[in-house]
């Protein structure tokens, strides 16, 4: 039996801290929303804990209000990262770090393309390729170090009955 309660609280606070740090860090290369998404994706959430979905949704709304992004943007991103892992396990895709990394990288490519084309077609603004891809690339590069740290914290709180 795995007890996630303490680690869950730690990660809720980490996510809350990262989202709140948006008021301090203003960088083109580090998108704290995407970094929060990476943490959500890497974490091994409890599949029966319904409060996680509500918290992720509320964190999204909180981020949208703080950063002034359109309502629903961050919450859909957070829940997408959460759901991808659930769908992966539902489809019985093995929970291998490398496979998870490939799925994550593909998701990043899709998201960056969507971001680019949305801004290009709706606002008629061509963003330079480098500026568009950089935050996504940083998050992909952070995958393995973050996965290592988070796995370490989560296994520390594993309790065998």
């Amino acid at each position, binding site marked *: 039996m795995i007890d996630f309660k303490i680690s869950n609280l730690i990660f809720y606070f980490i996510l*809350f*801290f990262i*989202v*709140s*740090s*948006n*008021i*301090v*860090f*203003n*960088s*083109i290369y580090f998108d704290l929303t995407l970094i929060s998404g990476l943490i959500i994706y890497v974490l091994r959430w409890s*599949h*029966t*804990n*319904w409060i*996680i*979905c*509500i918290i*992720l*949704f509320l964190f*999204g709304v*909180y981020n949208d*209000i*703080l*950063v*002034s*992004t*359109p*309502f*629903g*943007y961050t*919450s*859909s991103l957070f*829940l*997408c990262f*959460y*759901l991808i892992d*659930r769908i992966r396990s*539902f489809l019985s895709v093995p929970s291998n770090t490398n496979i998870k990394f490939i799925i994550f990288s593909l998701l990043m490519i899709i998201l960056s393309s969507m971001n680019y084309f949305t*801004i290009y077609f709706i*606002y008629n*603004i061509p*963003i*330079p390729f480098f*500026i568009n891809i950089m935050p996504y690339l940083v998050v992909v590069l952070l995958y393995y170090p973050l996965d290592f740290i988070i796995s370490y914290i989560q296994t520390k709180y594993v309790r065998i009955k």
Partner: protein
Amino acid sequence: MRLSRNLRVQKILSPSSRVFILAITLFIISLILFFGRFELTQSAKNLRSYLTNISYSISYIVSTPSNLINSGIQSVRDLKEIYHQLNEYNRNKLIDSLSFQEIISMKLKIAQYEDLLNLAADQEYDFITSRIVADFSNKLIGSILIKSNETKKIFVDMPAAGPNGILGRVSSLDNNIARVLLLNNINSRLPVSISEDAHQGIMIGQGQNNPIIKYLKKYKKIKVGDLVTTSGKGGIFPPYLVVGQVARTEGERIEVELIEDVSQLTHLMLLNYKFKQDNE
């Protein structure tokens, strides 16, 4: 048959499936809010302006460690800058004392000429000084949060300016927190006047890129280095305030380099322009 149906029902009603359904439902709600452009509705605007102060207060407390690190780095940079400036000042002290005399005599001459030409003095506006508390200028939806003690005097669409020129306008306000929509915001539209010939156009924010000017009739006459000022059309911004300079021209595409760099500012001025107009 019945057994398999029961098993299916059991599977759907299992706690894991229920959480999955809840996540899917919330995800769909989020997508509806996003693609349905909920933020354009009045209730969303009210909700956002009402919750900005609360979310800022929470985030300010939670992000205290990051804030301390950031302000520490900033203080070190400032000290380095002051030390550098002091050295520079000592080096130029002698030269300055000579040029000071020249400047004074030139200023007196300018005053005499202005008097002879009957030039009107530059228009000045009442302003409220506000502190920048959060900077989101590097995002596509570039904005800043400001705090002021005189919030009762602040209103939506109030022009915000730095020491050199215009920065943006107030887009929403709460008790003592207001959000300023910057000129680089992709939703920003500013009527501008370019060069001495006062060519009229609309400046559109481009996120991290330089803003561009559209709807210009005589775009071929625009040269790199031409001054861009507010035209005053629309009534939100006062006229003749410096916006920036033309940085690049490529056919109809005219890029403007903004005169104000928000990341270098700690305070800004909120011009009491509309307020003055209404009272006149």
